[in-house]
């Protein structure tokens, strides 16, 4: 059985595709390997500049013109690196759904959220008219937004951060993808809202048997969502393994620093000043 997501030797450099990369710039991501089986979960941990966000973009081929990627990224059997956009469009939303950190920028500020949710439902599931309306309502209820009529008629800025992020999750899951890529989905949220949204993601991923790639800089958050992690530092995967193992016996210096910091803050909660 092949994996749902198979990344091998993924290298991302800053530079136009045509010519050689700019000077002696270090690659932004250097030879990343990772796999996720169908229904499996993996955490990607790293600080800023570690390349973790680029990985999520690379998986669905959204890196943009200024970056060039080499290596292999196979999503449900399709090679993403070098593939033309029309080959990748069927993957986006239907095989892999993406949730970002800042729902305010992920949602169109000028469109009501109901309409924004209807669009992928219409596109991926071919629904129209009354059935589409029902699907929108069902999708909202699924992400625990029960006041469906009011919410669907609202604009993003009229909703709270937590509500917006739930909408973003609903949109990401509209096409019933097999893989959910969540890139710092709760970093911008209040702690109580974060707990709710994480629980929501966990429940939906479980109920639908989806695979999950959870990206974050917060070890505590990641540890509540996945059992396996890959630690990124400055573009390289420096460590991988079970969360428990990484926490108790970190091998790499960068991992140690991460774990020490997370532990220190966690310890402070146990034993404050």
């Amino acid at each position, binding site marked *: 059985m092949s994996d749902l997501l198979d990344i091998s030797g993924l290298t991302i450099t*800053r530079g136009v595709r045509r010519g050689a990369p*700019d000077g002696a710039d270090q690659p*932004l991501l250097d030879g990343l390997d990772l796999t996720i089986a169908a229904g499996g979960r993996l955490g990607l941990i790293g600080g*800023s*500049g570690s390349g973790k*966000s*680029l990985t*999520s*973009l690379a998986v669905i081929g959204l890196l*943009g013109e*200024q*970056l060039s990627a080499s290596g292999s990224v196979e999503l449900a059997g399709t090679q993403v690196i070098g593939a033309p956009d029309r080959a990748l469009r069927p993957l986006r939303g239907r095989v892999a759904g*993406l949730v*970002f*950190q*800042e729902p305010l*920028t*992920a949602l169109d500020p000028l469109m009501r959220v109901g309409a924004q949710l209807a669009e992928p439902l219409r596109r991926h599931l071919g629904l129209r008219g009354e059935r589409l309306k029902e699907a929108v309502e069902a999708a909202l209820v699924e992400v625990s937004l029960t006041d469906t009529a009011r919410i669907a008629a609202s604009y993003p800025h009229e909703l709270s951060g937590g509500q917006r992020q739930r909408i973003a999750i609903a949109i990401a899951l509209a096409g019933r993808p097999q893989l959910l890529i969540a*890139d*710092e989905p709760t*970093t911008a949220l209040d702690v109580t809202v974060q707990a709710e949204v994480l629980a929501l993601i966990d429940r939906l991923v479980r109920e639908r048997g989806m695979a999950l790639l959870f990206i974050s800089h917060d070890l505590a958050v990641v540890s509540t969502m996945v059992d396996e992690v890959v630690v990124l530092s400055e573009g390289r995967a420096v460590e991988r393994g079970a969360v428990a193992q990484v926490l108790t016996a970190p091998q790499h210096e960068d991992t140690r620093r991460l774990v020490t910091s997370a532990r220190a803050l966690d310890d402070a909660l146990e034993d404050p000043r």
Partner: protein
Amino acid sequence: MSAVDAQTALADRRPVRRRARSATLTVGLVLVGVIAVLAAVSLVWLPFAPTDTSGGRLEGPTGTHWLGTDKLGRDLMTQLMIGARIALATGAGAVAVGAVIGIAVGLAAAFASAWLDDTISAALDVVIAFPVLLLAMLIVAAQGASLGTAIIAIGLAMSAIVARLTRILTKRVLSEQYVVAARTAGTSWAGVIGQHVLPNIWPTLSVNLALQFGIAVLAEASLSYLGLGAPPPNASWGRLLQEAQATVTTAPVGAIAPGVAVVMLVVGVNFIADGLRDLGDPTRRRGA
């Protein structure tokens, strides 16, 4: 950093055609430099006296009269050089007037209470709605045609745009945390304006002022073309263009020369503005 932020950060750091940009700046400096040299030289030497009408009428370029003569026999090269002086003075003068008034009003609006800011902004919008030329014409018609009046008129019209730009740039700076930090560090508002606001709005503002220089030169040329500028022999290029209008088929150089001169100066200034924009980017500076 989210995925979107990562992309944006990379975009900002890309060296955008650095070589192309400095070529623009160089070309701009050359074009403006030629005009500046003509103007500077005109202060100490002219091929002929401005009022000398000894040359034949409407002659083409010859060894003595490099660009020919006008309908009264005056040397065209001499008039072009005087015109260069006037063009530069107009540009600089109008920009100075516009900048001083505009920046002051813009700062006031940015610091003002909500209703005062709205009032000032509305007034600025009204002024901006008037075409620069029309406004200048009104002022000149009231005060009489002279170079000084033209400069002030154009400067006043321009100040509204400068004010509006200053206002929005200042508001943006005031919303930054380093302004709050400056206040908690004990810096007075005057200090905040001098040390933080002005240096941070200057890059964008200076580019705009450079562009306004070109607009001012064109505005003055238009005013003179319409007969509202200073009369010859201390005529500006606009006036030269107007006078050459009637004889453009028989003595084309009379129109081409000032026309080319205006284009050179305005395009040159715009290129310099482009180059300034790139230079003004603080992330290109590095410490020792």
